[in-house]
């Protein structure tokens, strides 16, 4: 164990962590927009919209993220789509995680008691108002956990964009390994950095859950 080496590379890994966090946050933002869109489509009255949503989720979940990433980054230029490695990574991961997140959202909406829908409809509210005023406010707290799990998965999958040259944590660690020939120390440090980020995400999710729970109890 080379402690001195660890002390030297830590500041650089910390810097790379910022990029990993940036990748996670940007992909999460795209993913949430995609997930909400897919969820709305899957409860649409139009069969075509429901079908398209299901097909999207099936394809995104049915193929490897790495292949999707290579397809966008290396194959994109053939289709006139030239993206920087960072953008290609963020867009691909966002559209990918959005499919997974939509599953959790759908589950939460379905978990709301059917009587709520009937009560709202019998008062004369339309489908959209019913969703907005009654179903979503009740479903939202149920979504937090699965969104948190998916955010952790997303954070870890940002390591894959090292393969297209984004110098985030994993790629940065690889560079140090080539220059120092101390793979164990370097990768262990990178792993610790991921653990800290993942722990932070879990803490935020717990705090959110508690806030929602508390909001409910306080209201009672």
């Amino acid at each position, binding site marked *: 164990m080379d402690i001195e080496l660890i002390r030297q590379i830590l500041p650089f890994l910390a810097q790379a962590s910022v990029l990993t966090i940036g990748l996670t946050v940007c992909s999460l933002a795209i993913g949430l927009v995609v997930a909400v869109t897919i969820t709305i489509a899957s409860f649409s*009255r139009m069969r075509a919209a429901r079908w398209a949503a299901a097909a999207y989720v099936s394809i995104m979940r049915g193929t490897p993220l790495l292949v999707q990433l290579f397809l966008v980054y290396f194959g994109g230029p053939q289709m006139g789509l030239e993206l920087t490695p960072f953008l290609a990574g963020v867009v691909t991961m966002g559209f990918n995680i959005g499919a997974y997140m939509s599953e959790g959202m759908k589950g939460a909406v379905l978990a709301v*008691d059917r*009587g*709520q829908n*009937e*009560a*709202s*409809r*019998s*008062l*004369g*509210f*339309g*489908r959209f*108002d019913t969703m907005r*005023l*009654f179903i979503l*406010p*009740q479903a939202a707290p149920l979504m937090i956990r699965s969104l948190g799990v998916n955010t952790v998965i997303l954070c870890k999958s940002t390591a894959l964009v090292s393969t297209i040259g984004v110098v985030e944590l994993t790629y940065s660690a690889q560079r140090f390994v080539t220059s120092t020939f101390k793979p164990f120390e370097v990768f262990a440090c990178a792993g610790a950095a991921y653990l800290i980020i993942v722990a932070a995400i879990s803490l935020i999710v717990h705090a959110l859950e508690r806030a929602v729970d508390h909001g409910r109890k306080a*209201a*009672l």
Partner: protein
Amino acid sequence: MNTQTPMIDVRQIRKAYGVHEVLKGIDLSVNKGKIVSIIGPSGSGKSTLLRSINMLEDVSSGEIWLDGKQVNRPLKGRQFENHINHIRQEMGMVFQQFNLFPHLTVLQNIMIGPIRLRKLNRAEALDRAQTLLSKVGLSDKGNAYPARLSGGQKQRVAIARALAMQPKVMLFDEATSALDPELVEEVNQVMKQLAAEHMTMLIVTHEMRFAAEVSDQVIFMDGGVVIEQGAPKDVLSNPVEERTRAFLRKHLSH
């Protein structure tokens, strides 16, 4: 004497789940200010009938009219949506499981319909909600959330919520079936009060005594058809049909 248009008019409605027919051509009408109770064994189709009138269930054929307007008009898409949202505002529906909105306070539960659908301003809606709350005896519970209420209180709020839309008729789907026995009476009291005010009501119930007390007419259903109907004293005390008699024997014995 029956020259006025009925408030609710159901003509030959049928409904089937696959090959299983649950409503086999039902006719029914309720005049303004009248109270009609539907009784019958579980699975007789009485709840389905009530839910069909509110279009919570689609019917296969037949017509449903509310105060001279057809409820199940053969419209499509957005047009049907607008029509049904509009006509449902004229009908108050009370569910067995209350279905209060758990994320809203009692007052918010009652006010949200008038504000969003009837376009009342907040002050008017609040005023109306408070009047209704005191009417159902829950003036002190306005700011409570549904989870804090007993079943009987929840159902009284649900009735107030439906009344806040100032509907032309009230539909009660086994309103007291999910309640503990000691809580049934408080809900019955509210319904009796509505009856005294000549609210038009269609009530699906399993409580024979209550039906006898409040109804102008009682309908006995079994197997998706109306077996017998008439004044409560006739249907409940002197039934003509054997199936009605068998049902009443079973239900009045305990």
